[in-house]
């Protein structure tokens, strides 16, 4: 008889953690994402690929309501996080973002100390002050940054290298203990060595979080992700297990993109 925890774990692998149901995003009249239905599961890394302007970033930002700040945006369809529609009127977007963390394209640490960066989110969410040092240490360890910064937690985060800054941003996001982690081209501003460290980190983090990443780098999608979705002109063209996706694409557009005929 498997334990209760194990059963819940099993359940999470077959029930999507987060899914979109015919999600459409418009900027004024312009349709950026058109009726996209996708499901994302626990312990899986999903990669969203496609050429610039295909709607993959817009789609990603709709998953934690980061698009709310844009004027004239309209969103139709549903985004369900553990079965709850995050666009329902009664839902507080601030709470949504506490459950769905985000890492951005350019490392964007606050101009504060390393410690303050990681502790910033939990502090705002009224996390008990005395437990902060432990939380900061755990988060930095999970982000594979602890060894490099443990002796200078009280120095400015801007003194770190680009790759370290991005790992700090990851530590900052996971300090909120989210269930989903969104990454918007997290390596596009980094050099190859820093990139490979982040990719290794993503492999470790997927044990704990559902990870959805946008990338313009097809090799990266192939290396890191379990499932891949291909976007083109706001449409979802193809979605499938990464191995299949890259070796036997089903759609001609996907094949053309993968073979470099456009993009």
């Amino acid at each position, binding site marked *: 008889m498997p334990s209760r925890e194990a059963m819940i774990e099993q359940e999470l692998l077959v029930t999507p953690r987060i899914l979109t149901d015919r999600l459409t995003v418009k900027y004024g009249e312009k349709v950026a994402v058109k009726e996209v239905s996708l499901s994302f599961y626990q312990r899986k890394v999903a990669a969203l690929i496609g050429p610039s302007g295909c709607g993959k970033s817009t789609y990603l930002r709709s998953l*934690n309501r*980061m698009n709310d*700040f844009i*004027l004239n945006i309209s969103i139709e369809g549903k985004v369900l996080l553990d079965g709850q529609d995050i666009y329902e009127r009664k839902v507080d977007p*601030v*709470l*949504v*973002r*506490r*459950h769905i*963390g*985000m890492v*951005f394209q*350019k490392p*964007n*640490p*606050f*101009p*504060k100390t390393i410690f303050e960066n990681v502790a*910033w*989110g939990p502090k*705002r*969410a009224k996390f008990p002050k005395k437990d902060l040092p432990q939380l900061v240490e755990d988060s930095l360890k999970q982000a594979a940054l602890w060894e490099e910064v443990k002796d200078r937690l009280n120095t400015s985060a*801007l003194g770190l290298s680009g790759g370290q800054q991005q790992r700090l*941003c990851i530590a*900052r*996001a996971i300090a*909120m203990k989210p269930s989903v982690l969104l990454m918007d081209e997290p390596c596009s501003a980094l050099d190859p060595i820093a990139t490979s460290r982040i990719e290794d980190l993503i492999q470790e983090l997927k044990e704990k979080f559902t990870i959805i990443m946008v990338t313009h780098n097809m090799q990266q999608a192939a290396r890191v992700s379990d499932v891949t979705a291909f976007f083109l002109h706001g449409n979802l063209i193809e979605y499938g297990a990464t191995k299949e996706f890259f070796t036997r694409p089903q759609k001609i557009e996907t094949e053309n993109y993968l073979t470099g005929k456009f993009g």
Partner: protein
Amino acid sequence: MIHLKKSWRSPSRSPAELFSHLVVWLCASISVVTTIGIIAVLCKEVFAFFSHVSLWEFFTGTEWTPLIEPRKFGIWPLISGTLLIGLGASIFAVPIGAITALFLSEYVKGTPRIILKSVLEVLAGIPTVVYGFFAVFFITPQLQKFIPDLDTFNALSAAIVVAMMIIPTISSISQDAFEAVPKYLREAAYGLGARKYQVATTVVFPAALSGFVASVILGFSRAIGETMAVTLAAGATPRLTLNPLQSIQTMTAFIVQVSLGDTPAGTIEYQSIFAVGLVLFLMTLGANLVAQWIVKRFQEKYR
């Protein structure tokens, strides 16, 4: 051979280039020359003034009666009057200005923001003399309903009205500073599940601190340099006091008083306004230096 040598035909020695260089240089030096000129004129008269009045009397005396016998030239009543107005106005204007700026940059978008901003600009465009009689004929009578001991001319009304004048200065410069905080810092904060006021107070405000301090100092300098409104509202009673309910006199108001009278050039009263002017100038200069130090010490550098 390729021609690379400097000559009057080469790009960096061409007449157009030299001419524009000269024009730029001249324009830039006008403000420097003006500043030096003002200081020179001030110093010349001040030197004459201090040949009659001792430095000791000027900087330690607590009575200022240059126009009536026995004449006393202690600057402190004027300094206290000026600071009373400057600090008093800042107490009202700094929080209101800062909150207005945060509101404009973080809370409102689109048309309401444009409307609010233009209303503030109108406030900045009202002639100062209008503020002056607004204080005398409206604010003071209203305040007297609550504070019966309030003099007809008093520092409190003057400080309130000066606060109204410097709120646009503080809020518009601060707003520019707040808006210049990069979008990616706000996104980082919102992405961590922060509320709007948390983003405004713990990310935007600290990152824009230098601009905010600059706006406060500019507002303060404007407050202590403000002339017309305080001359009307605060009266002409040089008095060493921190009681805002009484009539006082600021440095600027004294300068107006002497300049409007028929004081002949070369007299001691005439020279005294230069001494007062120099002290005022040094005070604003000091405020600016303090501001620069604060900015250097506390600024969060995000670049």
